[in-house]
């Protein structure tokens, strides 16, 4: 065939591919740059030490911050992690180590489906199961919803990490006379640990950015609790979190609150990026 035309087409496609890549990367990098530049100029000490209060506070130039959202995010996300990690790793172990178990095909399909389910439905579920019966929005309901966001990601990552462990390690353990559970906990788990940690971190990063389920469960709160160092104050009452607060600030009509929204954005972004990079770094180091 016409060689020249084939080469021309090859060139053309390369140019198109590079162009497509630029089309993808440029706007997203612009967003990152925008959030960073707008956010940094809105950050100051008050942002971390004061709570938000009523809109008039910002309008009259008094000191406001998002201390209540930062503390609430910390408490709610950590509680969610504490609940999701054992269950997720357990379910992942079940999938990877007991492949013959009759529950597994159903578990795998449902786990993947739950992973793809919109987060807002997880919020609706907790609203019906926890918020409505208990009669109050609470931080704990929020962490339950976030836990459900994390759970399938952790289970999937655990299954993947355990499957990568060579079968010979299990055989070595069994040959030493270890029962199956000891083989899993003492021989397989340590080998798979970096993969597990990465999975947990990615799940955390994903859940830390979710606002929709929190709007229906922990609702939001402009003020720090009376005793800001007591985690129960956040878990038992309506509590603030960064993503949900960012949403409320962005849709509010106040200029000062928009600036605080950018600041919340950069904090949230940094949180997600740091957690994510640590996770990636762990996987890289171990391959």
């Amino acid at each position: 065939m016409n060689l020249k035309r084939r080469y021309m087409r090859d060139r053309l496609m390369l140019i198109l591919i590079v162009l497509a890549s630029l089309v993808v990367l440029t706007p997203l990098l612009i967003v990152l740059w925008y959030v960073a530049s707008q956010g940094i100029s809105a950050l100051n000490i008050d942002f971390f030490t004061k709570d938000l209060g009523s809109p008039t506070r910002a309008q009259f130039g008094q000191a406001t911050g998002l201390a209540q959202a930062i503390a609430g995010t910390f408490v709610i996300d950590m509680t969610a992690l504490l609940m999701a990690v054992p269950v997720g790793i357990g379910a992942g172990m079940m999938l990877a180590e007991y492949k013959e178990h009759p529950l597994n095909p159903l578990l795998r399909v449902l786990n993947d489906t739950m992973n793809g389910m919109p987060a807002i439905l997880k919020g609706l579920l907790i609203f019906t199961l926890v918020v409505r019966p208990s009669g109050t929005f609470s931080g704990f309901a929020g962490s339950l919803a976030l836990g459900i966001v994390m759970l399938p990601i952790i289970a999937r990552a655990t299954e993947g990490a355990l499957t990568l462990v060579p079968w010979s390690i299990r055989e070595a353990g069994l040959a030493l006379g270890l029962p199956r559970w000891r083989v899993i906990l003492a021989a397989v788990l340590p080998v798979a640990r970096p993969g597990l940690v990465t999975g947990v971190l990615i799940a955390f990063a994903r859940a830390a950015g979710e606002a929709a389920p929190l709007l229906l469960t922990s609702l939001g709160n402009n003020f720090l609790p009376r005793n800001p160092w007591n985690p129960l104050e956040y878990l038992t009452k309506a509590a603030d979190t960064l993503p949900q607060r960012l949403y409320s600030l962005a849709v509010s009509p106040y200029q000062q609150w928009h600036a605080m929204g950018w600041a919340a954005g950069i904090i949230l972004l940094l949180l997600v990026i740091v957690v994510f990079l640590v996770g990636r770094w762990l996987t890289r180091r171990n391959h």
Partner: protein
Amino acid sequence: MARAGNKAQATARTCKEPDLRLTTRTGGRIGDKAFLTILTIFGLSVVAIAVLMAWTLGRDATEPIQRFGFFGFLTGTRWDPVSGNFGAWPFVLGTLVTSVAALALSFLPALGLAILSAEYAPKWIATIVDYIVDLLAAIPSVVLGIWGILVLAPTLRDNVYRPIYEWAATNAPSQVGWLGNPTGYGLVTATLVLALMIVPYTTALARDAIRLVPSEQREAAWGLGATRWEVLRMAVLPYARGGIAAGAVLSFGRALGETMAVAMLIGNSSRLPLTLFGPASSMPSVIVNEFREAVDALHLSSLMAIGFYLFIISLVVNLGAAWIQRRLVPGNAGL
């Protein structure tokens, strides 16, 4: 497997390593049973969450479904909390239109970037691009949302929507109807941000699918004298087709359920989305916007019913992706 374990334990009894003391026959058996029981409980809780979700949403959705009918509620075009008339079609349509358009906009660029990092780029560039893509996929949607609401929407309104609208108003007044009110918050803005949101996700999944193509496949095409593009088109892409398609469907599923960015940008109107620039709503955005203000029981259960339909749609999309993965990915057919 279990029998092999027991035999191994019999040997272990003579061994004096302290670590192995738990491996006497009964200890191992009880331990194994207890361990598996715990794992089964954890596994069952994942199953239970999925079942509970279907059940609670279905239960709460019964009232509007009984009143308006299963398809009547789905296709009802009026959503009017004041007169107690609820139909989900404006939101279903808003969700489908924005998600399909976002996927259509983002698919080819995403595929281009995936091909670049998996096939063309040298290793070090590919590593950097992979990092960036994975990082972009992790950007919380509210962060994209605040950029959209404070930067993108006003910019588009002043530089794109309004000039087009004004031009149409003077030159083709009959066309103004479907352009819609150029406030900046509407279908097009929401679609653009949605496309930005899912593009790293599509890219990552397509890239992984392309990486899975065995190198023999490429070498065979190279050996026949194919150019680089021909290798891609004839050997690599057909092989990765299933993975890429499944990835696109998963991205579509993600776009369907995306709540915050859409809620911030779509304008939130409960009318049918028949205009390009005008406000609309999607299923997740109407839930999050009206949920906390729904005082009327029927209004609340209608929002729950929208959640129920969203659940069904997501379920179908996710199972579809799994099915494509199983059917179209070579070497995966037996799984």
